[in-house]
């Protein structure tokens, strides 16, 4: 076949759609769902352990109609957002301060690096003893589990601001504060957003862990209730909803990054 031969139309279309960045991702999800469907419906595995996609969909619909799903999701989202907003909001000035001030960095970095490696869920018993079973311990758990990562990663971003950019501003007559707001802040913005995006995933882990331990509502709570009644279909609903919300937040951060920091791509 010579090179001038026209490629058949169908092949060309297939190639073009394969080149779309999402095609393979969607394909990967579809394959797993298809396997799930085939295996769960074949009867090889007990339906109690592996519910069919249809059953999960039905369970999800029931929860949606009764309003439980939305209520649970909102409860979890609210905890994540309050805890993470505190963490992100405080980590930003502290991370920047540590990145620009050697003394502060030497003082705080070892402490933070130590606490960072303490598994946040291990704080749950303490938090329950201190603050009971209400919202505060859950929000604090998310804060503890993400603050130190956020702060240290922002500190690193600040340390990697090219020296020339700061020194140029100084030779142009820039003083400390304008250099922070007009050079350091815009330079680290993309990394800060990426830091938040990555650590948001732990926030979601932690809210579910907290709710598994003690809560009256929330997606994690629903999962632990479902376990008690062997409702694996409801557990699947919970897992899938958590995953979807997380994915949406992740995409939201990516979108924000593309819009706000187009220069960094």
């Amino acid at each position, binding site marked *: 076949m010579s090179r001038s031969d026209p490629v058949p139309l169908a092949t060309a279309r297939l190639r073009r759609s394969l080149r779309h960045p999402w095609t393979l991702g969607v394909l990967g999800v579809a394959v797993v769902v298809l396997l799930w469907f085939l295996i769960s419906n074949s009867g090889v595995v007990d339906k109690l352990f592996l519910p069919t996609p249809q059953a999960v969909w039905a369970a999800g619909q029931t929860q949606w109609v009764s309003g439980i799903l939305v209520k649970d999701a909102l409860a979890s989202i609210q905890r994540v957002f309050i805890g993470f907003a505190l963490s992100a909001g405080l980590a930003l000035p502290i991370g920047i301060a540590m990145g620009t001030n050697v003394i502060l960095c030497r003082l705080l970095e070892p402490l933070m690096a130590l606490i960072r490696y303490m598994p946040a869920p291990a704080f749950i018993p303490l938090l329950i003893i201190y603050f009971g079973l209400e919202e505060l311990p859950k929000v604090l758990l998310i804060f503890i589990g993400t603050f130190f990562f956020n702060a240290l990663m922002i500190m690193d971003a600040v340390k990697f601001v090219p020296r*020339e950019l700061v*020194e*140029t501003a100084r*030779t*142009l*007559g820039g003083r400390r504060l304008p250099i922070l707001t007009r050079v350091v802040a815009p330079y680290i913005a993309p990394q800060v957003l990426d830091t938040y995006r990555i650590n948001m995933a732990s926030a979601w882990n932690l809210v579910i862990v907290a709710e598994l331990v003690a809560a009256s509502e929330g997606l994690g709570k629903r999962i632990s209730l479902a376990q008690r009644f062997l409702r694996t279909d409801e557990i699947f609903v919970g897992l899938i909803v958590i995953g979807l919300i997380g994915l949406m937040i992740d995409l939201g951060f990516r979108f924000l990054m593309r819009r706000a920091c187009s*220069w960094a791509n």
Partner: protein
Amino acid sequence: MHLQVSNVCKSFGHGTQAKLVLDQVSFDLHGGEFLALVGSSGSGKSTVMRLIAGLDRPSSGSITLDARPVRSPGSDRGMVFQKYSLYPWLTAAQNVAFGMELQQRPRNEIRERTAYFLEVVGLADAARSLPRELSGGMQQRIAIARALAAEPKVLLLDEPFGALDIQIRESMQEFLHQLWRQTGLTALLITHDLEEALLLAGQVHIMAPSPGRIVRSVTVDLERSDMARLRVSSDFLQLREDLAQSLRSLEPAGRR
């Protein structure tokens, strides 16, 4: 304008670990002059520049600008780095305006001067481009425009064309010479390229390493109207060869 560097020494480290990188460096630079410091790496030429910019402090000796000692960076000494110094999130015009904004000049003035200096460096068309959309040579011209727009008394150029391809470097040298003639700026150029120094500067100080010091100073008086011809003229080549030999014969002082 009078920049005076006298008996400047600089060492890094402390006690027995201290390493002397500059030894008794002295020179003067007057308004409208173009001076070059030439030397290999390790000759301390960039350190001299950082001291003049106020980014570092000398261990001993003094640096004064119009009889006032240099203690910290200031907009009276504009600096152009070798690379990576444009703000990547700002357009070319915003980069040029940046220093004037730090100085909190009136908005109208900033707009006018930005347009003027973009014109001066021949990049009015690139005003809205981001740095990454510009070539290396264009980026350096924007960096020069930005430094000039802040109205420095002296422009410090630290290997400004060191990261550029040879052809672009030659056109940038011509550009810088034209700029100097047009605007009457005072410039201090750091370079390892002897030819570049001789093409541009009226005063050339040659620096030697370990410890960094000025070993030879020459006044260059060449007809520069046709730079392409100057590069191959016999006077120029002879001067260059003469100085190149003295550069080659330099040994670190400790080994003599």
